[in-house]
């Protein structure tokens, strides 16, 4: 029960701490102050005060007043709330039934951005697509290889030949591969 309540208030407590820190930062904006001016901090301060108030309200409510997930307490009191978004107090459980898979997906995505400039768009993308499908529990090797290579080639062709976006070519030997691919697709 206590753990559930703690879990329920963690997001609001984190936001509250962040908002308090940013509120403190608003007093340090450097500008040439003149008498009678509101200054650049007034707008963010107003937003942060609202955020702090909402977080405090939710923390107090969830700690002291919420006993269990009600059947239906929707803002608009319509059927829409039921279908589009479950009760707000419902535990945030099913968002990650596969936390390691999710972590692998996020790591893969971060690595993709890290190596993009080095490997170039084609190689990095083909690898990313293939590994993403593997992490996503897709196991047909032929389809994975074909879709990742053909998909990457299609992206290179459409964006560099049709939309004229300059995608990263990579460095060293990887650049040579990218240039060869571009030549193959008739892109100069």
């Amino acid at each position, binding site marked *: 029960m206590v753990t559930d309540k703690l879990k329920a208030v963690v997001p609001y407590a984190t936001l509250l701490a962040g908002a308090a820190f940013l509120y403190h930062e608003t007093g340090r904006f450097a500008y040439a102050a003149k008498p009678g001016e509101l200054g650049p901090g007034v707008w963010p301060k107003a937003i942060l005060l609202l955020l702090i108030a909402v977080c405090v309200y939710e923390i107090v409510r969830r700690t002291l007043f919420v006993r269990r997930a009600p*059947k239906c307490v929707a803002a608009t009191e319509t059927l829409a709330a039921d279908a589009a978004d479950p009760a707000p107090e419902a535990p945030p459980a099913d968002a990650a039934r596969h936390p390691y898979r999710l972590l692998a997906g996020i790591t893969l995505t971060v690595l993709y951005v890290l190596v993009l*400039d080095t490997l170039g768009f084609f190689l990095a993308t083909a690898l990313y697509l293939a590994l993403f499908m593997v992490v996503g529990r897709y196991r047909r090797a032929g*389809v994975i290889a074909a879709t990742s290579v053909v998909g990457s080639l299609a992206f290179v062709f459409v964006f560099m030949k049709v939309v004229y*976006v300059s995608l990263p070519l990579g460095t060293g030997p990887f650049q040579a591969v990218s240039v060869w691919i571009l030549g193959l697709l008739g892109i100069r």
Partner: protein
Amino acid sequence: MFDVLHQLALGFHHLLSVENAAALVVGLIVGMLVAVLPGLTLVMGVVLALPFTYGMDVTPLIVLLTAMYLSGTYGGAFTSILFRIPGEPLDVPLLWDGYTMARNGRPAQALGWTLLAALWGGLITAVSAVALAVPFAKFALRFDAPEYFAIVLFGLTGAVALGSGSVTNALVSLCIGLLLATVGVDPTYGADRFSFGVPMLTDGVEYLTVMVGAYGLGEVLARMGQGFATTPVDGGGKIETSLPRWRETWRFKATVARSSVIGVLCGIVPGAGATVGSFIAYGVEVQHGKRRAQMGSGIPEGIIAPQIASTATVGGHMVPLLALGIPGSGATAVILGAFLLHGVQPGPQILQNEAGMVYTIFASMFAAVIGMCLLGYFAIKPLVRVLRLPEAVTSAFVALFCFVGAYSARNSVTDLWMIVIFGVVGYLFEKYRFPIAPMVLGCILGPVAETSFMTSMIAYQNDWTIFFTRPISGTVMVLILLALAVPCVSRLRANHRARRATAVEAGGG
């Protein structure tokens, strides 16, 4: 009146250009595909289409996105009715009578009623957009900074108060969006805010990266966390549409009238949107329909009401977007973003300065309605085949679209990092049930709100009561207070009823 019709005729003429017509057709097909695929939402589809449009003129671009938006409100009906898979939340009410009718051995009739409802809802939405745009814009010409601030605040409040789910979570989401919009150099004083010396933050946070990251990558990560659990469906079976007869249709004139009004109103009110409209229209039929006792058993009213309402919201959303520059939904926020990317600021002047473009967009709505119905009648079978694609494969490409989309805007790897950050934020929002739309709206409308607020303060010697004492802004501020109070009162009443029911159960048991 004649001037409007003349402009509309010119709009149809402009629509015949190859670029506009091609944008319309592509938009219709892509919108249908996006709506059919359960892994892709309508807003996500519109966001992912953006990178392909940087080189386009603004008119075909908006024609493309509007066509996607319109056909997206119809495409999901097929999977709801035939496979019990709602492509979008707005298609959920179609499960109750549409799927039941199909299960009762009349799938072709269910699709026929859906097509007719989408056609009627679409025509109503296009007519209402044309009829309401000029009065809205004329009214908006009287606005000064306090009125603009009040109207923008109304748009933001609507997104909070009328969205589904928790009001407080929506407020948190909105605050985060508004704060993101303050990062970088302040427009009034030139002060550096919340950049902490990080060059990536000094330029501010691009709303495009927030939209693409939170909607696109965030959804992909959330689905990955669920293990891509959607099973591919064999959509290759017999799919036919059988249109009802005129005499049958006439019997439902009251349902059609009610749902049309609900749809247009839900479109105009910021934050309500297609999903809320669809559910309200179904709920009204359940309460007031002639055959309310039979709702849920597979009767046409249960298909007509939600489908008309959801399609009819599109025009309602386009009116405040074009005439006031205020988007009322996620999809129109993206369309506003597309306008701004091309240096066009929607608002009351747009009908005077860019009348050709506006009426071409309106004309495209009429054409899109006809086009989507033809597509639904003749070409839905191949479109539904995309359901065979495994979710891991489509999600991999959606993630890639997000990256290429963000990279194409400025050729900057920094934007890719932003996508990753907002992808994780979007995932956390999904996990903790914070809605994403208020954050995106806050991010786009934040600078407008701040500028009009600061301008008002400078012009009226820091007198904040000015927002309440001027007639238009005062009225809007009262509406804002009502918009926030009504859901709170509804919640208190619902809680009170739940407590009473629990007490009665405890007493009885």
